[in-house]
C-alpha cells in the first residue's frame, strides 16, 4: 500500500450516492457533514443487499436446502472479508446490531462469568476490581461500564481530558493498576477527532493483566485499522458509519478470549445442547449470535468493505486529512469561533466540533440547516466530555470520502451567516 496514492475523485464517487444529489429546505443543495453520526450508502451496497434478498434469502445455518446454503455462504463470506479488512481471523468477528451492542456484550458477558464455569475465571469482576475508561467516551462506551460496575460492585475510574482535547495520561500509573480488570477507550473521539495512543494504553493494560476494549466506531470507517497489530483484546464498530447498512455492527475479540467468554444473548443457533435442565453453548462466533441474524445487512456490510477497499483506506484518510485541515483553518479564522479539540491535524481525524460565542449550537445548526448544511448539534452522546471542557453543547461537522473542499467552504460561510443572523458579527 502506498501513501502517495492519487487523490480521490470526489465527483465520480458522489455518483454512487444518489442521496447526495437531493436538495433540502426549498431547493438548497445538500451538504452532508454528519457522517460521524451515520454515513450514506453507495448504490453498490444497496444492490448487494437487494440481490441477496431477491435470489438467495433464507435462514442461515439452519436449512439443508439450496437457498439456505447460498444464504449461509453469503453471510460467512461477508464475515471473512470483514475480518480480513480489520486484521482479524474469521472467527474473531461477531455480528451485532451496532457497536453499542458490542460493548454491552462484553460487559454483560463479564458479569455472567460469576455464574459460569471455571473456564470463564479470566472474566470475573467484583468488588475491589476496577474498570478504567476515559472522560471523552461516547455514552456507548461509558454507560455499559457504569452499569457493569453497579451490578458487580466493581469501581469505575477514568482518564481526564486536557484543555486541548487530548487524553490526560499523567496519572496512567495510578489509574491502571493490579486492580484494573478492563481498560475501555475510543480509538478516535467522535467529538474531538483526537486519535488516542492505543499502544500506550494496551501496554499498560497488559502489564497488569487487564483486558482492553477499543471503541473503533470512528476509526475503522476512516483509515486502515488492524486489530491484530494493535493488540487490543476486544473492539467494536458499526456498519452504518462505514457505508454499510444500519442494524449491523461488529464485535472483534481475540480468538483465545472469545473461546472462554460466557454467552450474552441466548436462544437459537448459539447452543450446543439444550435440555430443560440446562444448556451448553457453541464455539465462537456462533455462541454470540443468538437468533436469526441480520443476514442481508452482513452481506451489505461485506459490500461496503469491498467498496472501501477499492477506493483505498489510505486514500480516504488522506482525503479527510485535507478536509479537516481546511476546516480547522477556515473555522479558526472566524472570530468568535472556538474549536473543541486539537487544532492541528496531528493524530486527529475528521470530526471538527466548535462553539460560536453568542450563538447556541442548536441555533447555529438551524441556520446551517436552512442553508442545506447538515451538521450535528448537542453533546453528541459525549455529555461528560462537554462538561469537562466547560461547554454545554457544540456544533460538529464530520467528513467522509464523498465530501469536498467546497463543502468545507460552505460550512465556514454558514457559520459566518449564523453570526450575522444572531447579531454577533
Amino acid at each position, binding site marked *: 500500500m502506498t501513501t502517495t496514492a492519487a487523490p480521490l475523485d470526489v465527483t465520480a464517487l458522489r455518483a454512487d450516492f444518489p442521496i447526495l444529489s437531493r436538495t433540502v429546505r426549498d431547493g438548497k443543495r445538500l451538504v452532508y457533514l454528519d457522517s460521524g453520526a451515520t454515513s450514506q450508502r453507495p448504490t453498490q451496497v444497496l444492490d448487494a443487499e437487494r440481490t441477496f434478498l431477491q435470489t438467495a434469502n433464507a435462514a442461515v445455518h439452519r436449512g439443508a436446502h439450496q437457498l439456505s446454503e447460498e444464504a449461509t455462504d453469503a453471510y460467512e463470506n461477508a464475515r471473512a472479508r470483514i475480518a480480513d479488512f480489520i486484521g482479524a481471523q474469521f472467527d474473531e468477528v461477531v455480528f451485532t446490531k451496532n457497536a453499542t451492542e458490542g460493548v454491552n456484550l462484553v460487559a454483560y458477558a463479564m458479569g455472567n462469568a460469576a455464574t459460569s464455569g471455571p473456564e470463564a475465571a479470566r472474566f470475573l469482576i467484583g468488588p475491589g476490581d476496577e474498570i478504567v475508561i476515559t472522560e471523552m467516551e461516547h455514552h456507548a462506551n461509558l454507560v455499559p461500564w457504569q452499569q457493569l460496575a453497579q451490578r458487580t460492585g466493581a469501581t469505575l475510574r477514568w482518564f481526564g481530558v486536557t484543555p486541548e482535547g487530548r487524553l490526560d495520561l499523567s496519572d496512567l500509573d495510578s489509574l491502571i493498576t493490579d486492580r484494573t480488570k478492563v481498560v475501555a477507550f475510543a480509538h478516535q473521539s467522535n467529538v474531538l477527532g483526537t486519535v488516542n495512543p492505543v499502544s500506550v494504553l494496551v501496554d499498560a493494560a497488559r502489564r497488569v493483566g487487564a483486558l482492553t476494549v477499543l471503541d473503533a466506531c470512528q476509526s475503522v470507517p476512516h483509515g486502515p485499522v488492524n486489530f491484530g497489530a494493535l493488540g487490543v483484546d476486544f473492539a467494536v464498530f458499526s456498519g452504518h458509519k462505514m457505508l454499510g447498512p444500519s442494524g449491523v455492527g461488529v464485535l472483534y475479540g481475540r480468538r483465545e478470549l472469545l473461546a472462554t467468554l460466557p454467552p450474552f444473548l441466548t436462544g437459537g443457533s448459539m447452543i450446543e445442547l439444550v435440555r430443560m435442565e440446562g444448556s451448553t453453548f457453541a464455539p465462537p462466533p456462533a455462541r454470540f449470535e443468538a437468533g436469526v441474524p441480520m443476514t442481508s445487512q452482513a452481506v451489505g456490510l461485506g459490500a461496503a468493505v469491498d467498496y472501501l477497499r477499492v477506493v483505498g483506506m489510505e486514500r480516504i484518510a488522506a482525503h479527510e486529512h485535507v478536509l479537516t485541515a481546511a476546516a480547522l483553518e477556515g473555522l479558526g479564522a472566524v472570530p468568535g469561533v472556538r474549536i473543541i479539540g486539537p487544532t492541528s491535524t496531528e493524530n486527529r481525524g475528521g470530526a471538527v466540533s466548535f462553539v460560536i460565542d453568542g450563538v447556541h449550537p442548536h441555533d447555529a445548526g438551524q*441556520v446551517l440547516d436552512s442553508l442545506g448544511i447538515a451538521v450535528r*448539534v448537542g453533546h453528541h452522546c459525549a455529555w461528560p466530555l462537554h462538561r469537562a471542557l466547560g461547554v454545554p453543547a457544540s456544533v460538529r461537522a464530520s467528513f467522509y470520502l464523498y465530501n469536498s473542499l467546497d463543502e468545507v467552504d460552505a460550512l465556514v460561510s454558514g457559520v459566518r451567516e449564523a453570526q450575522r443572523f444572531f447579531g454577533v458579527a
Partner: protein
Amino acid sequence: MQLQQMYQEIILDHYKRPHGRGLRDPYDAESFQVNPTCGDEVTLRVHVVDDVVTDVSYDGQGCSISQASTSVLTDLVVGKPVGEAFKKMDAFVELMQGRGQIEPDEDVLEDGIAFAGVAKYPARVKCALLGWMAFKDAVSRSQGAKTA
C-alpha cells in the same frame, strides 16, 4: 425565508432580553429539566398563593427557542390562577405538537403565537417545551407539598 419564519422578532427579543430570569425567593417548589439530546437545562421555581401563580423564576442554559419560550411563559402565567395557567400550557403544547398545522389563538397565547413556526421543526419542539415541562412539574410538586 424559512429562518425568519422560525425565528420571529418576538422570539429573538425574548431571547436577548428575557423576562423574569433569575432564581428568586419565596417559592413553593422547584423543578430541574434537561433536554437529553442537547444538554440544555432549566431550573424553574413557582410561588403559588391561594391557587394563583404569584411568581415564576428560572435559570438555565439553552438555545434561543428554549430561553425565549420560558420568558414568554412567565408573561403568560404569572398572576394567573393555576387552572388558567394550565389552560395556556395546554394550548401552547398543542400548538407545538401540531407540526405547523394549528392556528394559534393570540388571546390565549399572546407572544406565544410567535412559536407557530417552530412547530414545523420537530427537533426544536422539545426546546420550546423545556420551560413548560419544568413549570408543570414545579406546580404539581407545589400542590403535592401542600396536600402532604
